[in-house]
């Protein structure tokens, strides 16, 4: 009897436990961090090739200026005023990296440099941690076209560079693996590596670390700077009305991509749709696709970088297009240049613009699906407020030509 009771008791206990046994505990599910938002922009200064260069910073929070020569320790100081910074004081000789670290907010730093016959400008690019592209440069001028890879960070970086030109893909051993030591700049004269290419695109595939990449195409005449940008599937390229220009579209991945090019100059026109094979890029003359001021919208099935190259008798300029639209824009630079703001409106409604320039304010209207040009005598940076989301680039002239994008701090979503 006792045995039976014990058996009933034991099996009832175990049966109850089995019936209500806990399910397996949930495992920790990793949450993905937010997408990369770099707060560091950096440019390269080659003191031996630049007679005067200044950096203008557009701040919205705390800033620290960073600078490093090859292998040197990092200069690291707080920036408290917004006066243009003479870069010769930071990089008195040789090649160095100069950048700005923005903490807790966005910001932009642009560089403007000039020589006796040259003028160039550009935004300091963000870090590349995966892939990036420089497009719309050339090596057919017979002058130097320098690729600068700047690594102001604490860890070494390594990158593979793939190139393409009108002659197709160039897989060159010299660029297949470039080691960029921490806090230093590595340069390559790509004119020596592949000569007489009318249009060149460089695709950067990061093996480790992070770096900033730009090309300075110089010579006896004008100089231009083009910075690397990460790929995107939608680009806007403002096209000045009076300057011959080429558009280059380079994929940032090793995949074929289909590209649709549309022009907005008061009317919306589909220019063409074309497939870019692996290892090649697409180049076309922007000015033959329409007359007067206008802008192009380039969309693709895989990420690409679209840029513009401006050229003429004794001058050249260029840079990547825009990937963002915004309501408030800043254009940085230095005083004493004749310059033009290129303000594009891809919306189907008119935009009311207020341009603040020095002590003056200009009110303009930008029609739907069109671009206007606003000439100014440069007096430091200018800001633009718009009733609709617009895009902004600018050119500066005499001597030489510079082309650069603006910086928006209230983005259109």
């Amino acid at each position, binding site marked *: 009897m006792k045995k039976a009771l*014990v*058996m009933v008791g*034991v*099996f009832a*206990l*175990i049966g109850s436990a089995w019936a209500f046994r806990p399910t397996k*505990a949930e495992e920790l599910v*990793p949450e993905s961090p937010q997408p990369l*938002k770099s707060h560091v922009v950096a440019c390269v200064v080659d003191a031996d090739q630049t007679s005067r260069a200044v950096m203008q910073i557009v701040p919205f929070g705390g800033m620290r200026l960073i600078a490093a020569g090859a292998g040197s320790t990092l200069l690291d100081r707080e920036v408290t005023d917004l006066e243009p910074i003479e870069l010769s004081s930071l990089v008195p000789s040789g090649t160095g990296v100069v950048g700005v670290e923005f903490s807790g907010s966005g910001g932009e730093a642009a560089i403007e440099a000039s020589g006796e016959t040259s003028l160039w400008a550009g935004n300091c690019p963000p870090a590349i941690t995966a892939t990036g592209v420089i497009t719309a440069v050339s090596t057919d001028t017979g002058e130097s076209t320098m690729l600068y890879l700047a690594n102001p960070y604490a860890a070494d970086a390594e990158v593979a560079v793939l190139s393409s030109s009108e002659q197709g893909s160039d897989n060159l051993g010299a660029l297949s693996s470039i080691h960029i030591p921490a806090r230093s700049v590595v340069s390559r004269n790509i004119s020596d590596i592949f000569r007489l290419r009318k249009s060149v695109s460089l695709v950067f595939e990061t093996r480790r670390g992070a770096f900033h990449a730009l090309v300075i195409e110089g010579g006896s005449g004008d100089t231009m700077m083009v910075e690397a940008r990460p790929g995107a599937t939608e680009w806007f390229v403002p096209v000045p009305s009076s300057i011959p220009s080429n558009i280059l579209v380079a994929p940032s991945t090793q995949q074929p991509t289909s590209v649709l090019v549309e022009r907005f100059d008061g009317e919306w026109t589909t220019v063409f749709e074309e497939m870019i094979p692996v290892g090649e890029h697409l180049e076309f003359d922007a000015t033959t696709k329409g007359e007067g001021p206008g802008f192009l919208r380039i969309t693709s099935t895989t990420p690409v970088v679209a840029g513009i190259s401006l050229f003429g008798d004794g001058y050249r300029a260029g840079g990547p297009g825009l990937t963002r639209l915004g309501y408030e824009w800043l254009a940085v630079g230095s005083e004493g240049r004749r310059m033009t703001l290129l303000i594009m409106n891809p919306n189907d409604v008119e935009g009311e613009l207020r341009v603040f320039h020095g002590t003056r304010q200009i009110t303009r209207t930008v029609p739907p699906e069109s671009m206007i040009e606003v000439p100014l005598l440069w007096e430091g940076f200018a800001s633009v407020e718009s009733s609709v989301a617009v895009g902004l680039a600018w050119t500066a002239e005499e001597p030489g030509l510079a082309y650069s994008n603006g910086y928006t701090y209230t983005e259109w979503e």
Partner: protein
Amino acid sequence: MTTETEPVARVNRPKVVAALLFYDAESQASALTAVASQVYEPSRVVVVGVGEDAAAFAASKKLQLVDSLEALVMGLEKEFEYVWVLHGDAEPRPDALQALVGEAKRTDASVVGSKILKHEDPEQLESVGAATDVFGEPYLGLDENEVDLQQYDVVRDVGFVAAVSLLIRRDLLRGLRGLDRMQPPDSAGIDLSQRARLAGGSVIVAPSSEVLHRRSCQNKVADWREQAGRIRSMFTAYKAVTLLWTVPLGLAVALFEGIGRLLMGKVAPLLNTIKAIAWNVAVFPTTLGARRRLRLIRSSGDEELFRYQVSGSIRLKDFFADLGEKLGLVVDSEPGLISEEDLTRDKSVAGPLVGGIVLFFAALMARSLWAGGSGFGGYMLLPDHPGDVLWSYAGGWNPTGLGTPIPPHPAAATVALAQLLCPFNSAFLTILNVSAGVLAIFGFSRMLSRLGAEGPSRHVGGFVYAVGPMAIAIGNEAYWPATLALGIFPWAVSAVLAEDKKGGGFRRRAGGIGAAMLTGGILGGLAPLGFFALIAALGVAAALGISKLSSVSRAFVATVSAIVVAGPYLNAVSPERLLNGFTIETWPQSKILVAALLVALAVGVVAGRHWVIAGWGGFLMGIGWMLSLLPSFGGELSVAAVLLVSAGMGAVVAEAFSFGRHGGSVTTAVRTTGALAVLVVVFSALGGIGDGRLGYPKGEWVGKFEFASALSENPGRILLISDPARIPGEFRVGPGFAYRLIDGDEVNFDEAWLYEPRNGDVALDAVLQNLASLNVTRPGEALSRFAIDWVVVEQGLPIDEAFVAQFDMAKIPLLTDFSVYANERARPVFDGPDASWVRQGVLGRGDPKPGLVKIAYNADDRFRPNPGIDGWGATVSPEKGSVGFKPDFARRAMALLGFLILGCGVGFVIWGRKESSE
């Protein structure tokens, strides 16, 4: 029985002094009478001894008293040629001395020993000179109770003669400085004979000299002391080159024999070996002194000793002889069957054989852990400074993570205490793991015996208990304290269930209480809620009528001891902390295994020799599984549940495999079903035999962070960011990763547990959240206040991207699967006014100067002097040149009480055992 001995001429008779070694007055008087009746009268009789009894005896007989042979021989006139060393419990026949002197003169021997006969039966031989093996083990060459038929009456060289009666040249004895006073009687004779031979003397036995021996000299000598003395003799006599191979070989032989005897049900040999080793470690400096003294007079090499030694090991021969005898017992019985009687007899060979097989497979399954060569899951690396761990446990500051006043886990303190007490630090892990495994297997068998079970199936139950499904579940969770707790739990139950034998006196009862204190205390020290399992196991046993109420007092003592030893921790942590942090799964993963256990339970209850024990096991499994249904199940409660389930499984398997009843209602089919169910359970455990880790992860963290100490004299902290499955010990969770701080260059056992987050932990979490958003470009600066020198990130985790574009943490290629970043902004844990401030143990010191010492510990108002707060961190004034911490006195008192309980437990057990041995 005497033989005619040629009288020594009275002319030029050598003068002899008789040295009577004093043991007790009664025997001594008889010895003195026998000496007085010698036909060859000694010129002087001296009593050698210490204490009041010896002094009183010498005074009453008007004899000279010296405290040692050395003192005697140093003051002895040169006219004395020989010293007759005679035990005070010996009675020499009248011509004994004459025979000794005669043979000494005739053979020119240096040491001449007598034939020793048993006083209670003078027909029986005790010793006629003897040999030893190379380990100093005596080989008498006599059968038990062998009668003296003069079969050994030949004067011959021997390995040693008993110190009961021996004649030795005065000058030799002076050179040897007498008997080794630290040697017990038997090994003293071996030691003296060996030293005499190495000094160039010869050692012979003169059987014509007969001495009756009472052996009261051994009354106050513990069993292990003779073994200890023999080890000391080896160290004294052998040259270094001989010791190089004899010591490790001797140790291996002793341990093998000890474990073998343990399997045969005898605990004492293994314990004696351990005691003998410990004693020799303690007295080693004096052994070196004895060795130096011998070197002064040494004239022969070790080969002189080898000539008189037998080959092989006497201990092993005896062991195998005993084993063979037991085998013979079974072989001689009914062919092919083990009879019921054999099963119930402790001397049955089946028990040792099954035990041996079980131990072999258990060792195979846990070989990587038992080897102790690598840690696993971060839980196996011992504290660098066990004393600091004990200080922290006793109300001090606990530096784990960013520091806390909560004491370390009791298991950390228990292991640290054992580490301090263990003389072999390098082998400590192996000793601990092997001990836990062996204790678990045989402790479980012993527990089942206390519950009334018998037969070899107990060992199979022990196997399932120690290395079965629950042991593997513990390994999967890498919770090492639970593995150790498996080792002590059955002993705690046994200590409570031990029966008071009839006639057991107070000391024996105290011994039982001491065992309950000791085992209960250790259980609490390893598993703070282990007392739940203890109470449940005992409660079910009482409810089923298989334990008596007489054990209530011991159950109470064991439970209180467990609670008190874990007291500082239980007092400090919240219930949530006790029930969280980890969970050991109590349900087997396989439904087939559960079904097999249920079948085994049914067969055990129906057909087991003691069905009630199977029922007991079933209830324990059920209670353990029911506990897992509690909403707050986890942490220490899961350890208690695992102890219950594991014990339940073991008991069920043991009874299902016991084949208790023949014929009748229990059919062969039922028994076969039970055996198959047991095989399923056993083979489910054997599945983990592959890597020999019992489910524990590989010890990938051993030595992984040594770069920290190699590259920095005072390594601060390492921030380890990894997948939760790989991270050693407990961890905190960030967005998409787990992380923890590591103090110094390795994850020590005492660091395994993390405690409730304090302000610093919250601040660090915020920094890591920010870092994970990839918005931080100065991670080194952000982490410097936490004294983090290094960040180690598992490659492939998204947060590794946060260290790509940043300015102050240099990536160093040190590890293959982890990115290592050195903090260029690193600051020390004790950031004082100058560089003199460094960490020392848990706290810090430096030059006394004005200013502030910022401490990368969570702020606490018990830091001294002048505690303050800097953000989340602590600050003190540097003016005293050191940082102090005011302890929590309540926890300190509890910790001291816990240590006292363990100490008293040991003391009572030894005291109680002595009475039983007497």
